[in-house]
């Protein structure tokens, strides 16, 4: 097991927007087959971490490796589920179209969608219980249903690693249960999953590993070890005032560049 490269390895990662550091010196090694919850307060840099791993934000320092490769080569092994707001829900696509997008990574420029792809999309929709909505326009769904469609698309990607940004936002209790059980079964089939989550109460039951993040990595490890009063206090209670002050100071030095958001 140890001889294999980590699915996700982050080393001394520093990211800042307009000279304001958001992540600072983050180290992370995620082992294959873990179901990791990323928790931390709003603005802690959770989405930024995900985006940096996905090569959408360029770090100022440190590096990311995916299965031992550079992010550029590695991201195609990752199934990415963006935050729900990042999508144009008015767009003229049906639920089926969206799920089929999960297959696009496996097609070329002239690639046609094969029968097998369609069958696969069908099955994925069935797994998330949305098959009866296959021909609906995507904007006509409720928030929870949209999130299920996203999940179906991720399933259709057949990746070995998944990154999901807040898949439980705007989702009712039943859907949340469905999603969790699907995540667990994905883990059972050997996938590595990293899920951004903001609800402390449920985090303990959903994930087997937790990453506590607030600008710095506060802790990472198996849930029972990390989910302690002290560490949570450190993550949520009192911003790390001294530390963030120092970081801002350091950021004003010319040698630390501003992170460029790629293509935004």
């Amino acid at each position: 097991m140890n001889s294999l490269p980590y699915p996700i390895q982050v080393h001394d990662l520093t990211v800042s927007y307009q000279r304001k550091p958001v992540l600072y010196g983050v180290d992370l090694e995620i082992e294959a087959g873990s179901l990791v919850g990323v928790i931390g307060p709003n603005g802690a840099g959770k989405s930024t971490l995900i985006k940096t791993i996905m090569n959408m934000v360029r770090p100022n320092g440190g590096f990311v490796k995916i299965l031992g490769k550079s992010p550029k080569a590695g991201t195609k092994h990752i199934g990415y589920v963006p935050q729900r707001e990042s999508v144009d829900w008015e767009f003229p696509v049906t639920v089926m179209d969206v799920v089929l997008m999960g297959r696009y990574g496996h097609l070329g420029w002239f690639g046609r969608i094969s029968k097998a792809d369609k069958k696969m999309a069908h099955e994925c929709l069935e797994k998330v219980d949305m098959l009866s909505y296959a021909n609906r326009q995507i904007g006509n769904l409720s928030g929870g249903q949209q999130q299920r469609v996203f999940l179906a698309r991720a399933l259709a990607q057949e990746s070995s690693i998944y990154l999901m940004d807040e898949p439980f936002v705007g989702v009712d209790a039943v859907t949340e249960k469905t999603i969790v059980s699907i995540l667990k079964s994905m883990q059972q089939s050997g996938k590595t999953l990293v899920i951004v989550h903001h609800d402390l109460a449920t985090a303990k039951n959903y994930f087997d590993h937790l990453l506590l993040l607030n600008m710095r990595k506060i802790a990472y490890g198996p849930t029972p070890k990390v989910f302690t009063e002290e560490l949570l206090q450190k993550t949520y209670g009192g911003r790390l005032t001294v530390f963030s002050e120092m970081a801002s100071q350091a950021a004003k030095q010319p040698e630390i560049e501003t992170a460029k958001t790629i293509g935004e």
Partner: protein
Amino acid sequence: MRIFLKLCPGLLLLVALLAIGIPELMAKQVGMQGEEKFWERTVRFFLLQDTSVQIVVLGSTLIGISCGLIGSYVVTRKLSLFGDTLSHAVLPGIAIGFLWAESKDNIALMVGATGAGFLGVSCLTFLQKCTHVRQDSALGIVLSGFYAVGICLLTRIQKMEFGNQSGLDSFLFGQASALSVEDLWGIGCTLFIISLFILTAHKKLLITGFDLSFSRSIGIRADSLQYVLWLLLAFCIITSLQAIGVILASALLIIPAVTASLLVKRMNAYLLISATLGAFAGLGGSFFSFLGQGMPTGPLIVLVSAGIFIFVLCLRPTDGLLIKWFFSRKNTLRIHREDTLKAVYQILESHDFQHQTINTQALMSKRGIDIVKCEIEIQQLINAGLATTEPRSPKLSIPGQSILSLTPMGWEYACKIVRNHRLWELYLTNEAKYAPDHVHDDAEKIEHVLGDDTIRQLEHILSNPRKDPHGKLIPSLTDMEMGNIESSPSS
């Protein structure tokens, strides 16, 4: 697609209406004499009798298709204002091209327009990347700035000696009849490249439009795609300027595509409809311009496409404005009918179901409406086969003095409505714990919308009740035969 076929006759009708209205107007304006000439010209246009007409027809149709296709992407990606800015930004380029060639030389104009377009996009990119100006403001600045420069240059040109017969103002408002064979080549090539691009990159365009960050995550080069799209948009605008003009060029990009968005939910159909409507609009505009002998084409194209848009907005299936109005009216009529039936039931009930008929007077006072309305409502019941009337006495038939009796169907319907009302009242008092005097108004509304499934659920929850909160009978399926109810009040 079926939807569109259904609309086709309507579209033709609309075009025909415009065809009658506008030429009348224009015939007066340009001093044409009467109908004969108008029909002659119409025939000439549609039989494609001379080359100039052929060029106009072909050119404006192809432009319409190009704009419809590219417009679909412009609209779904919320780039409408961007298209408008680009079209205005090319104006100074056209003027400079003209100054340079000292005549209306197509190549020079094209080069100028392309250059200015790129300059415009660069300014835009600069404003966005290097300042905090918001995108819509940046678009506004570039649009008006470039346009202002263009207008100044054009005015100067018109004062120069070679400027008088320049015909440059056709670039402002469009003049399809000025299209040349070279223009046609440009238009054809643009359409060809656009189609090729859409065919090869269709899936990538779809996914980058819907979910940009996901598309990047699977390795699609969304930025290159975006630039190609901009480039094609620029070519599309530049080649169509002669026909539609700078000021209104973006309308042909936007209106057909928006019309398509009212009709379909998938990108393929969207492209198809948008292109078809674009072709219609282009052709229609140049046709009217041809009839009007030199009316600027741009405004006419916009009028035709806007006409189609309004038409679709009103008549599209399921939620067109007119269709909605029609259904809501139908619904109102149904509710009135049901209220009348219920009133009849209640009158019969107040006499312990001793009689099977009521007189109109009683219904009037029960419903609290005047005689005219009452007559109308009764007439509607009769039309629907729910009731019959006969004069009070065979000799005199005065309005409001007739005898009304329900048909078996009407009786069943009335029982159903009363049952809905009373079940709901009971449900509100027993299960939702409303006070009995609070439930009537609510039930008045709900009774009309309770479906059979809900009724069955209510029956189940309330375990098939017999009496409502006010102690009145809830007529059940078995009671619905007259006889049963007549005997039941004592029980």
